[in-house]
């Protein structure tokens, strides 16, 4: 049975030398910040993701706070991801695509998260990956088609309901045409009320509540359904309100509050779905074997999960369920979003013997790393500077 590497086991001098390495990736990410900003600015034109700049800040802050205290340990595959980042960056600059650059950035962020794999549960890393996927989304032309399809589905559903309710109207690219005015219905269901924001919120909740990957995907599916319902509801009621009160809830301050209301409704429904999924995915209690061979519960689920090695049930199905499907007990305090305690003994994230061996190798190679890290810092600084210059030239030209 493998043993986790205690935090205290890492020599202080190695940690201090490792500081050089710790700033390499943030430097690389900061160098690509213009691409992220440019892509974000481009996204604001799309009502479905116009609230992403706010979501980006919040989610980024949560992620950083979640990972910042964990120490990193680099392996070949992580460096490969960084290499992909550089490759995508070069491609992005040639194609003039901010989206491609952001895909590259997401590789580096995943590499950064994976490098803390020893201290951070896999589900959290997976949630970060999902967050990144939601942020970056699909290639712009595919995304545009998907968005269009989404809008037409919602417009068709809401139009059918409105027509059945006796509202004479028609829908085209300009929005919903009523006798008195034309309303851009995309803003009834866009912004904060967008399904993308709901999906982001859902992933944030999963991260916060330490739900399993299975739970996460079930919840995402449910959230998509909720997005459909809230979008149809927001559109139908929005148009009814325009007709009855004359107030256009698709724009202005009224629009902001309208969308926030629908976001709250959506989050409430996500909470409901989470509970239903939790009913299915709750951990199976461990059973002790009685003298007669019967199994009896040994205690509460949380206690059993924490007490990993001592409370292994011996039942592979139960163990697998509790490892991949059941949520972990929350470790956040209400007062802070930072993890209150990070257990290295969590089952799904316990480092393996190989990991331990690698750690030992890492310690033994420290001297060599010390020499290399200084040169690497210089190289990274030069690359970052080049990246910044290329981006400014590219986007200035494209923007101009």
């Amino acid at each position, binding site marked *: 049975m493998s043993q986790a590497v205690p935090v205290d086991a890492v020599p202080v001098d190695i940690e201090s030398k490792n500081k050089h390495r710790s700033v390499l990736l943030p430097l690389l990410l900061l160098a690509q910040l213009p691409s992220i900003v440019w892509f974000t600015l481009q996204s604001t034109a799309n009502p479905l993701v116009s609230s992403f700049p706010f979501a980006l800040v919040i989610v980024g802050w949560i992620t950083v706070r979640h990972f910042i205290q964990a120490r990193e340990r680099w392996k070949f595959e992580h460096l490969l991801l960084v290499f992909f980042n550089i490759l995508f960056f070069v491609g992005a600059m040639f194609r003039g695509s901010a989206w491609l650059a952001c895909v590259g950035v997401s590789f580096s962020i995943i590499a950064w998260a994976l490098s803390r794999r020893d201290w951070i549960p896999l589900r959290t890393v997976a949630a970060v990956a999902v967050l990144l996927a939601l942020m970056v989304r699909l290639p712009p032309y595919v995304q545009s088609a998907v968005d269009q399809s989404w809008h037409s589905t919602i417009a068709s559903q809401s139009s059918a309901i409105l027509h059945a309710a006796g509202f004479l109207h028609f829908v085209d690219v300009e929005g919903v045409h009523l006798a008195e005015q034309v309303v851009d219905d995309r803003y009834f269901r866009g912004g904060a009320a967008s399904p993308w924001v709901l999906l982001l919120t859902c992933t944030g909740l999963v991260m916060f509540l330490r739900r399993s990957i299975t739970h996460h995907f079930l919840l995402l599916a449910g959230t998509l359904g909720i997005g459909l319902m809230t979008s149809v509801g927001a559109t139908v009621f929005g148009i009814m309100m325009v007709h009855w009160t004359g107030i256009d809830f698709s724009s202005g301050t009224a629009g902001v509050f309208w969308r926030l209301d629908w976001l709250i409704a959506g989050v409430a429904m996500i909470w409901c779905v989470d509970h239903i999924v939790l009913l299915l995915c709750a951990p199976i209690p461990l059973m002790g074997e009685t003298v007669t061979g019967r199994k009896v519960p040994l205690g509460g689920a949380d206690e059993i999960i924490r007490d990993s090695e001592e409370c292994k049930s011996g039942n592979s*199905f139960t163990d697998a369920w509790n490892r991949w499907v059941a949520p972990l007990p929350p470790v956040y305090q209400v007062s802070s979003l930072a993890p209150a305690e990070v257990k290295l003994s969590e089952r799904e994230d316990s480092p393996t013997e190989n990991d331990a061996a690698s750690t030992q190798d890492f310690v033994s190679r420290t001297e060599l790393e010390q020499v290399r890290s200084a040169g690497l810092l210089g190289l990274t600084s030069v690359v970052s500077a080049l990246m910044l210059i290329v981006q400014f030239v590219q986007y200035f030209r494209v923007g101009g």
Partner: protein
Amino acid sequence: MDEDQDSRGREVNRVRRRRVREFTGGQNSFLDGVQPFTQLSPLPNLDKSRRDAAEAAVNWFYSRDLSLFYPSAPLLLAVTLFFLASGWGETNSDPSTRLADFKDALQLAIQSEDHEQQHLCLSALGQIEPSNSSYAIQEADLYLTENRPTKALQVLGRYVDPVRSGSPDARLWLLRQTLNNKDVFGLTREDVLTQLHAVLRESRGNREAARTLARVYMMTREWQLAECALQDAANHSPDLNLNLLKLQIVLERPEEIRSETARLAVAGLEALIAEQPHKQDVITRLAEAYYLNGDPQAARDLLNRSYQRDNDETLARSLSRMETMIAEDLIKKSAAFCDVVCSGLLRAIELNPRNLRAIKALLDVSRMNCVIPPDRLSESLEFYRQRAIASDATEQDVITVVWLHDLRGEYEEAADLLQKQLETSPQFLRYNTELLIKAGSGGKASLLAESELAKIRRKQGENPGDIRLKRQLAEILLSLERPSEVIELLAEDFSNVEMAPTADTAVLALYGEALVEYFDQQTELSGLILQRNVAAMPKVSDRLHGRRLIRLLTTAISTVKGEARNPIAMESIDRLVRLVMSRSPAADDAMRTLNSLRAEGSCSLDILNTLSAFALDLKRYDEAVSWLEIASHTARNSNPGILNNLAIALVRSQPAKPVKALEYANEAIRLMPDHADLLSTRGEIYIALSDWKKAEADLRKSLALRSDRSKVHRMMADALRGQGELDQARHHQNQALKLERGIAGQQAAL
């Protein structure tokens, strides 16, 4: 090592026993006393993995916390509501329901003139039925009424895309608007052509597109392209051969091509009228096709029948136009038809009082000494009088009133009216003088003309080379009956007419007119030929004098370059014929001149007609027969007027030849049925043949068409007397007497 294991096993057993006790709550159970090492698994026969699975499933089931299900209640409610609403929407808003709802709403919006609602409904209908462009056209129309052409174009956008497929109807609507109101959409000629080609690509042989395309090409004088466009369209719609034929006439295509097109046009339109017998447009077009195919009688019959059946104003106008065209053709054929033409033109004016063309033609005919009953022009006069006093009256309206007064013999009114126009239109001075002379105010006319003459002479002194002033001067001198001065004025320009081919035709005509008038003065004919007066003969002192006079007339004819039916040529021929008929010393020379002119071919038929007309009027029937036989041969027996005159000459000659005359009369009636003159001629022949009943039938028909001829009443009296119906004969005799008295009164008044 073994001891360790034993102790460990004991410890485990101890723990297990304790847990069993705890599990049973200290109560004894069937498990108590069971050896802990003994395997009492509930699933003893299963292997470990299956047992684990079963255990996990059972544990999963019994460990569910059902209280977690409670928060799902609001979600379930929301989901249920959502599905119910969606289902309700899908059921109650299928396209057919929407279509019906929007159509109802559109009708209401149209009734209440709610434009916003109309726009909404039309846009929605267009979206539900995207292949139906009528909604977009309706909406574009609505936008145009709101003076928003850009929006109209935007609405039509996808239907009038120049590259991709669209809607022919929408394209044609756009073209109609563009061609009717050029700046509304700002389309260029290229845009129009692109749209037209797109329509023809999407709807092959589209009538309207082909016609519009031809029209566009004709506007830019691309005749061959226009002809090709119409030819293509005519292949699909044979009735469009009529449009093609009109173009071919303009382009002077060979006769065989035109006649083939005319035949196809007639066939196509006859097929069309079989399907739509009451469609006025088709009736009118078929009549046009008959006319252009050389069958004006069929055209008139068709329009007559349709007019009598439908009593429609459009058909009346078409019939009026047709009568005018037939009359114009007839008068071109022979002056002998002037009564027939007059009758036709009067009918045309009665059918359509605003028919200006007919009024103008009647004015020309009136100069051939036709009798025009004034009351038949009353309606037209009233119409144009109203037009002339309206705020938007034009000069033409006033002149038309003058013409109508002139035609009605109201010369004073005509002259008064025209005098007001002289300041702005001095070209009417001569006409005004004529009117004043006719009104018996010759002195006033002379004073007026002299005053104008002095003014123009002053101007001419300042600018001697001004041809316009010379023309005005010539006109005034002619109105003052001073042709010698006109000849003197223009002689230097036209001493040799043949050498002045590029001369101003109007001035040339004045020169010719002056020559004829000078001839009249020299032969004492002036003032004697106001009405057709066959007794007025020129006085020639000797042969040499005669030759000088004949030279004047031949020069006059040459000024109009041998143009057939030209008034100057006709007057010159008239004077030459009078010289021949007068048997004066210049008669032989005049005859030779006429023969020479006939040999040139341009006025041959006019000369023969005039000769025969004089011979008939002078009752020299044998002479008339000889001229008319030549004329009939020249006209290939297709001129009903010549045939009619020939029949009259034959029946009245001594000895009479009524059988031969009947043949000619029948042929004339075949060519022009239901004509009063031709019918009365045949009636006369039947009287000569003592076939009273047939005579009565023809004469009755003739009187039904025209009842104001005393001679026909007399013949009718003869025919009735021949059958022993003396009372009726007396009645017609009285009618004849009454009419003759009326004519005598009119002549006395004149």
